[in-house]
């Protein structure tokens, strides 16, 4: 068997870096990150099911600055993966492969992910104040 000697693809040393590559691998990173976030979501739901005392403890952890930083990261990862996921679905349907369109939708994904993240956090802080 020659399994071990096969090169990995993409062969990073012979590829020229292009921005679309970063967008593409970011879909995978955010997917894995969201899988980690799903564990926290399950913990939060279970804390809610356990009762007021443990839930207050969970909320305090999530509300600490570390907790909020992680939640900010997950918010952005969620919206990036969602927007880029729609881009993937369009490709699967055969739309948007042309280089110019693919570049434009890539920029749109980054902008939309930031806009949605800001919107969610504005709502969160408005709810906190009110």
């Amino acid at each position, binding site marked *: 068997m020659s399994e071990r000697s096969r090169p990995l693809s993409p062969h990073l040393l012979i590829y020229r870096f292009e921005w679309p590559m970063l967008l593409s691998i970011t879909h995978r990173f955010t997917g894995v990150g969201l899988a980690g976030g*799903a*564990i926290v979501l399950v913990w939060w739901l*279970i804390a*809610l099911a356990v009762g007021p005392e443990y839930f207050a403890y969970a909320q305090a952890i999530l509300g600490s600055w570390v907790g909020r930083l992680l939640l900010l990261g997950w918010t952005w990862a969620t919206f990036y993966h*969602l927007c880029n996921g*729609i881009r993937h679905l369009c490709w699967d349907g055969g739309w948007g492969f042309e280089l110019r369109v693919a570049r434009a939708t890539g920029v749109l994904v980054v902008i939309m992910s930031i806009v949605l993240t800001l919107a969610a*956090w504005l709502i969160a802080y408005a709810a906190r104040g009110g």
Partner: protein
Amino acid sequence: MSERTPLARARGLGAAHGGTHHWWIQRATSVVMVPLVLWFAFSLAALGPADHATAAAWVAHPVNAVLALVLIAAMFHHLHLGLEVIIEDYVHSRWVKFATLILQKFVTIIFGFGAAFAVLKIALS
């Protein structure tokens, strides 16, 4: 005409030996999750640092509970298949790959049903 690769050509292909079926479930869960994730993310944001009574009342509302369960089912199927693809990409040793795939399946199932159980417990209590 279907976009789908004829089964006869796809059968037995890929490390999971079920390529096209899993591919379609991954896409179907993606489509379902677009509205659900938007709804859920903004609902949680609005809930913010809510106390127990407020958060529990939100989850217990029948519409929210049912949509949350649909989201949980879609999300855990989707991330299970996603992680499977990633494991197949990066783990090349046959037995390590097998063990990792099985372990991933167990862990995902436990967390997925844990989430569903929590929602049901809150909604029904």
